[in-house]
């Protein structure tokens, strides 16, 4: 039974933020609740990666936090090795809350604020060792710390161990944050834009390091990136999947090459368009045509009816305004778009051009309305 159970199972998870507080509600000024994540499911295996890509406000961070137990879903379940991680104490399962917490770790975008400014690298790394490997004596702990520092490329380890965060560069801080998470021997690390704050030339190095260390500790990643190039690199290296999020939903999910080189959802295509091509000959061929009706994102507290993307979608038709597209399996990917269903009534539905009425070219794009 265990062998069929995925390492991590996110099942129809919904996270709603909404309570504006008693006073605002009494005054009738309560904000509409925002459904940051709306009915999302995915599974993660051992040594796997799922990369979440989307614009700010699409719910990717909330979903990642829900997956590692840092955000309680308002509906749906998250199961770690088959056990509901928010299950009450009386629920069946062999794992304690403490074990689950240790198994699921996070690395933040800004390593500067996740490391304690008054603690040396040695102290920062000793904490997880004491928690996870309580049997080690101080000598063994030091050996383990030095070993980890060498593995993450901070050599000589002895010199780095006594440094404070302000004595480290941005890349070095992020490596210490990664080491600290890894010393918990986690099964899943949620890396929230963990390479975005680094200089472009350091990103490959950091992603390579995460990949190499995965081999040693058997960790899976939920990796967030707003950048398709980073997403492709890391996902392809590990052989995982990329999922594209839009206003709380996954609109396309599949292997890196499928999703990035041959996107099916119009939103994925827009993200691909937005990724700058290094090769100037390619850049010329796909410039100008903004594959969106508007640049600005709709208010997440009042998402559009039907397909949430219809207000920006250059392919939107009348039916998209009323009907919500289901997630359709097509080869090795899933796409939530009527266009992936050859027999759908979408194809007979009239084109939608009066929503924000325009051709979708940048040069004629309508004014933003968010």
């Amino acid at each position, binding site marked *: 039974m265990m062998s069929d159970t995925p390492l991590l199972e996110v099942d129809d998870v919904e996270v709603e933020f909404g309570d504006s507080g008693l006073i605002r509600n009494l005054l009738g000024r309560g904000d509409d609740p925002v459904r940051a994540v709306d009915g999302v499911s995915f599974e993660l295996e051992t040594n796997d990666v799922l990369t979440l890509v989307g*614009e700010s406000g699409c719910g990717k961070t909330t979903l990642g936090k829900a997956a590692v137990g840092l955000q309680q879903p308002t509906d749906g379940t998250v199961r770690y090795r088959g056990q509901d991680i928010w299950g009450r104490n009386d629920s069946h399962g062999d794992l304690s809350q403490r074990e689950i917490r240790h198994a699921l770790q996070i690395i933040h975008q800004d390593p500067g604020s996740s490391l304690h400014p008054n603690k040396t690298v040695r102290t920062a790394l000793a904490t997880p060792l004491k928690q996870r490997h309580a049997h080690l004596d101080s000598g063994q702990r030091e050996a383990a710390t030095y070993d980890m520092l060498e593995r993450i490329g901070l050599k000589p380890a002895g010199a780095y161990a006594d440094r404070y965060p302000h004595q480290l*560069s941005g890349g070095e801080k992020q490596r210490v944050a990664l080491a600290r998470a890894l010393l918990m021997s986690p099964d899943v690390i949620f890396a929230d834009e963990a390479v975005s704050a680094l200089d472009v030339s350091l990103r490959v190095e950091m992603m390579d390091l995460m990949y190499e260390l995965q081999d040693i500790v058997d960790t899976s990643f939920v990796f967030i990136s707003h950048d398709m190039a980073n997403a492709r690199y890391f996902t392809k290296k590990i052989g995982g999947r990329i999922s594209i999020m839009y206003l709380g939903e996954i609109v396309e999910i599949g292997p890196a090459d499928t999703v990035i080189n041959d996107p099916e959802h119009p939103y994925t295509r827009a993200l691909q368009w937005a990724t700058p091509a290094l090769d100037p000959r390619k850049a010329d061929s796909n410039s100008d045509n903004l594959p969106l009706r508007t640049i600005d994102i709709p208010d997440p507290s009042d998402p559009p009816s039907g397909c949430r993307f219809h207000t920006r979608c250059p392919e939107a038709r009348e039916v998209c305004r009323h009907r919500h597209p289901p997630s359709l399996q097509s080869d090795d990917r899933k796409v939530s778009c009527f266009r992936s269903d050859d027999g759908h009534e979408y194809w007979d539905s009239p084109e939608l051009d009066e929503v924000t009425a325009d051709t979708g070219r940048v040069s004629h794009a309508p004014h933003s309305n968010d």
Partner: protein
Amino acid sequence: MTTTESTLQSRRRSTNRDPIMTLRDVTVTFDMPRGTATVLDSVDMTIERGSVLGVVGESGSGKSMFASALLDAVVDPGVLSGNITYYPKNGDPVDVLDLSEERLKQFRCEAVSMVFQGAQNSFNPTMTIRDHFIETLRAHNRDPETGMQRARELLSDVYLDPERVLDSYPHELSGGMQQRSLIALSLILDPAVLVMDEPTAALDLLMQRAITEMISDLQKKYNLTVIFITHDLPLVSSLADRLGVMYAFQFVEQGPTEEMILNAAHPYTRALLRAVPNLDIPIAEMKPIEGDSPDSIDVPDGCAYHPRCPLATDECARDPPPFSDVDADHVVACYHWEQAETEIPYSLEDGGEE
């Protein structure tokens, strides 16, 4: 000797051109307790009128200092030396470092304007966007009526609804809308040159791309000269006519964009092209650059890149390399650039099959 040589070259190249700004031997130093930090080192550069120059470098390579130098806006106690000349369309050349306080203020908005990253820090949170435009117009003795007409047009140029945005306070606008408003504001006095330091940092991918498209449109519409500074090489490659790559406070290579990307000559440029995640280079060929960038107080002798360079010889450790011509318009500061292609290979061929 290096300087004279490259000055001669730039002069030769610029004879049949129309430069709008030239920099000669421009250096910025800071005296620090640990020693003197040289944060811009004898930079020579010719900027052509109506072109887009992309300046690419990692954090701490001196690219923001280059931007500050263009406006003689180096913060105290930095010392800026060398020669910066601005050539107005009509009128005599202007020696920028020789301007009085008053003239310099005028120069910074009316001739050369600057957009920084993080628009929220450039706006006064207690003033509406309209107030910002009016304040700028008044400070430069412009007629508010005609000025605001131009403001509305500029806001429309960046796909904003002028009436809505003018009455908004900065916090009422999204990050992308703030940054677009700031670009409109920077053009209100009709400058000839727009200097942009990471203008799309911290914005979403779609907004980044939309803004680079807008900059390209604005550049054509108003015949602007744009200097776009970024660490993100792919971002400028579709926008810039020419690229300059900075390493350790100097330009190490300059040339037409396509030439620079398809045929990079400097070992550092080539290493950078392989290290930057993008959709064009096969992932097996992406490799980090070994080693670290130098500290401004302790830049290696000779070629500053030699400790990290696979082609380095004794000569590189001894004397800084002068600029060599790769092509008529493409220069590189490297002794061994002819071997770089075989020693540091990269290809743009597959990976992003379309």
